[in-house]
């Protein structure tokens, strides 16, 4: 039986508390992984390991971190993602809310915008979570 969205959130919260050393109440849906929770690049590997274990899923790196799009000259110009690149990102990451990023699509800022709820939606889609 697939987990509920609440169960997904609780497991993600636990994984983030363990991986990042933050308190339960800091892990809110709107919290950004990098800005609010202080995640660094190596923490993402730790988080992926924990989520894969907790939900028994596989998380290919490119699904959560689309490095191939963000480093592709076709999709990035002058350090900003082009419209074509944004369209690609939306297809690759339907779980992510990219509206803030679209307003100022600076490649460097991409990592800073991923929120806890983006992560929740991603896992929900992988496990077929119910309400």
């Amino acid at each position, binding site marked *: 039986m697939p987990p509920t969205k609440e169960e997904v959130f609780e497991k993600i919260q636990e994984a983030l508390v363990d991986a990042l050393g933050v308190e339960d109440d800091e892990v809110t849906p709107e919290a950004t992984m990098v800005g609010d929770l202080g995640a660094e690049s190596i923490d993402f*590997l730790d988080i992926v390991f924990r989520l894969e274990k907790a939900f028994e899923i596989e998380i290919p790196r490119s699904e959560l971190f689309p490095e191939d799009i963000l480093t592709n000259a076709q999709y990035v110009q002058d350090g900003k993602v082009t419209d074509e690149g944004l369209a690609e990102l939306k297809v690759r990451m339907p779980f992510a809310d990219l509206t803030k990023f679209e307003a100022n699509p600076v490649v460097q800022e991409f990592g800073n915008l991923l929120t806890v709820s983006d992560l929740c939606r991603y896992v929900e889609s992988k496990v077929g979570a119910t309400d």
Partner: protein
Amino acid sequence: MRWFWIDRFIEFESGKRARSVKNVSLAEEHLHDHFPAYPVMPHPLVIEGLAQTGGLLVGEVNQFRERVVLAKITKAVFHGQAGPGDTLTYTSTLDDMKPDGAVVIGTSHIGDQLHAEIDLMFAHLDPSQVDREQFVPADFAGWLRMLGLYDVGRDANGDPLQMPPHLLEAERAAGQEPRST
């Protein structure tokens, strides 16, 4: 290489668990400064010893073909101190193994007493991003023998663990074949 923070493997179950020992000795110079008249085995060097134990456990799973590096210390809790004359027994258990890396749970004991709990995360370096070798293969083979990995090592069937062919070949090419006992 001189950066050995384990002395010898006492157990090595391929893909599962490894145990090693580290003898703390007043002959180690850093103890005279850490601290003057009060020698204490530095905690970071205990972590390094567990990283070496766990890192070789992880590396051996893929016959030492992957470049394994310590990526994150996920937990390091110390319950006491070790000093000269103590023998630390490090136990590393493979908790999770993936293409990108591995998670290892570790403990340090002084006799029966729990000295530290150290959990570590290793990453496999992406060959497309890092081109050079991590260690000179013939040297690396020599260290593994020196640490007794193949004296105590057991494979998944419980049979004696064998050095992988590419390391044996490197030893032969370097003229460093092991002395037979």
